[in-house]
């Protein structure tokens, strides 16, 4: 058997797996996008000694593609890492540029406080993100977790298709997508984000119409969608594991961008200081970065936002949390799904108010700015799956270097650890490979994986050389 190379945190919990034993795999996981599978490794005594999240997708080299690009080009390119979350990538990229070129932007204004985007732009970007988060969470809860709750293979199984809540979720996804379409021009790769603001063309009639659709959806069928999850609550395993959560800080429940990060026992850090803490490694069994802090895993996403910001949620969202039995400061990875449902409730509560506020704001002309300056900026946003960071170094107004820190990459180390801690006692109790696979798939689902933008490392074995002699 191949000797596995040392890996920082893996050795601490997986033990020696250089001898005999066996390996099983879940096969490709169903998830929002991308290819990944989970491997379990047993020793000769059938004990589980390792759990691996294996991602074999090739590098997309997005960060290299940004070099030499203007801020506008950079945000348009970076969105195209994927069509699942282009809005949040676009906003993270433009925020990085805004921070990097702050001096040039400030020169446009007479304010000594420096450049800030207008309230109109802030609302357009926030509403776009809320629509995207609502859609993403609903797809996860009712497309992946609900079928699991009724013990069928996937959303395509007839029993899943016929669930009324699946149809309701699809109807609400349509409403959410149309909101994002409206405030961005198109929700897939929008072109309305700019350095100085948004150029989306909206009017009061359209905005108030969407507000009414959201209200109607919340009142007519969201309640029943919540009831379904509440009645299926017993299908969610009780499993706790200590975790360090990471999320943006803010005066309101963070579902947009921010400048400070909450990092558990490490406190509240500026985004640039957080960036200096993290370490990205690629384990031998995967091509995706696993991110750790001081060699320890951490978790981003709805569960992290719930951990820190529960009191900032709307009263309706908190009532939904009580209805589905989501405890405060939960350490159960499976509860990420419940936290997502609570965020859906929160978004449905606040969206109509935000759309109405936007309807009362006048259109604005955006100032032009020359991109000729140097600077470094980090755009940090709360994407559906967790905190997304774009770091960019600009020289003469063009990208000299860039990095993206992706939510799923940040969760993979914790996910691997959790998979092992969850499945090991099941293996000790005599679970078969198939039973362990099913259990691990259920846990993996709760993380709402998306491999689409998770940064990958190009490895030497990926390279095909022509005969050179």
């Amino acid at each position, binding site marked *: 058997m191949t000797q596995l190379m040392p890996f920082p945190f893996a050795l601490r919990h997986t033990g020696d797996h250089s001898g005999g034993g066996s390996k099983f795999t879940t096969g490709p996981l169903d998830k929002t996008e991308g290819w990944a599978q989970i491997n379990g490794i047993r020793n000769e005594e059938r004990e589980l000694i390792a759990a691996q999240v294996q991602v074999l997708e090739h590098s997309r080299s997005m960060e290299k593609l940004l070099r030499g690009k203007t801020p506008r080009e950079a945000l348009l390119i970076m969105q195209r890492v994927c069509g699942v979350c282009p809005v949040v990538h676009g906003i993270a990229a433009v925020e990085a540029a805004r921070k990097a070129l702050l001096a040039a932007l400030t020169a446009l204004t007479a304010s000594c406080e420096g450049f800030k985007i207008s309230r109109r732009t802030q609302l357009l970007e926030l509403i776009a993100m809320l629509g995207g988060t609502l859609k993403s969470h609903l797809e996860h809860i009712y497309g992946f977790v609900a079928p699991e709750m009724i013990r069928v293979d996937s959303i*395509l199984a007839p029993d899943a298709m016929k669930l009324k809540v699946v149809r309701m979720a699809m109807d609400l996804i349509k409403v959410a997508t149309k909101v994002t379409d409206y405030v961005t021009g198109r929700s897939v790769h929008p072109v309305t984000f700019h350095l100085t603001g948004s150029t989306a063309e909206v009017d009061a009639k359209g905005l108030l119409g969407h507000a009414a659709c959201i209200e109607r959806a919340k009142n007519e069928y969201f309640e029943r969608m919540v009831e379904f999850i509440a009645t299926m609550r017993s299908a969610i395993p009780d499993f706790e594991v200590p975790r360090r959560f990471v999320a943006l800080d803010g005066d309101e429940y963070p579902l947009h961008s921010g400048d400070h990060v909450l990092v558990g026992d490490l406190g509240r850090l500026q985004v640039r200081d957080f960036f200096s803490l993290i370490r990205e490694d690629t384990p031998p069994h995967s091509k995706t970065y696993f991110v750790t802090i001081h060699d320890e895993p951490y978790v981003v996403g709805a569960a992290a936002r719930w951990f820190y910001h529960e009191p900032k949620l709307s009263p309706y969202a908190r009532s939904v949390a009580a209805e589905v039995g989501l405890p405060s400061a939960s350490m159960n990875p499976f509860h990420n799904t419940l936290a997502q449902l609570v965020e859906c409730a929160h978004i449905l509560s606040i969206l109509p108010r935000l759309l109405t506020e936007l309807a009362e704001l006048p259109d604005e002309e955006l100032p032009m700015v020359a991109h000729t300056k140097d600077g470094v900026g980090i755009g940090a946003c709360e994407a559906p799956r967790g905190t997304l960071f774009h770091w960019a170094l600009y020289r003469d107004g063009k990208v000299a270097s860039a990095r993206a820190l992706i939510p799923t990459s940040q969760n993979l180390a914790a996910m691997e650890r959790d998979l092992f801690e969850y499945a090991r006692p099941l293996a000790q109790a005599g679970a078969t490979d198939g039973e362990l696979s099913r259990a691990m798939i259920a846990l993996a689902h709760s993380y709402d994986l998306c491999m689409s933008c998770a940064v990958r490392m190009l490895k030497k074995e990926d390279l095909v050389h022509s005969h050179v002699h």
Partner: protein
Amino acid sequence: MTVLILVLGNPELRGDDALGTVIYEKLQEQALSPDVTVHNGMTGGWDLMIPLTDGHETLLLVDSLQGGGPPGTIYREEPDTFKPTRTTACISPHDLDFPTIWQAAVQMGYDLPKKIVVFGIEPKTIQQGVVAISEEVAAAVPKVTEMIIAECERVLSET
């Protein structure tokens, strides 16, 4: 009576699969009836459910279609429905093809378009990494665009 023109295909990275986007852009230049909606579904997967279930009575589907003819061959078909290519294994919503989405919408109880017309062009290549459509497919685009516009006018005049 409303018509949905749904074009499909990867717009940038798979050769002749981009013909949908090319036709979409040609249709944008036309003064189509307000009862006609043109949607570029690209590689939308599950997201195709959104325009598909908006209550249109007629669907004109546009895509590259491998029918066995030489590259650039134009096809016009009027299927009754679509056969799903996936049963229960679902890797990702992005990965689902149109026939599977169609059947999912049927099972979820949506009212779908009663009349379906498929316009296809035989591709020369849909290899990943090829960024332009072939000459043969490009030559067929104007004719197919005319056929789609004529189909819209005919359908709307029948109501």
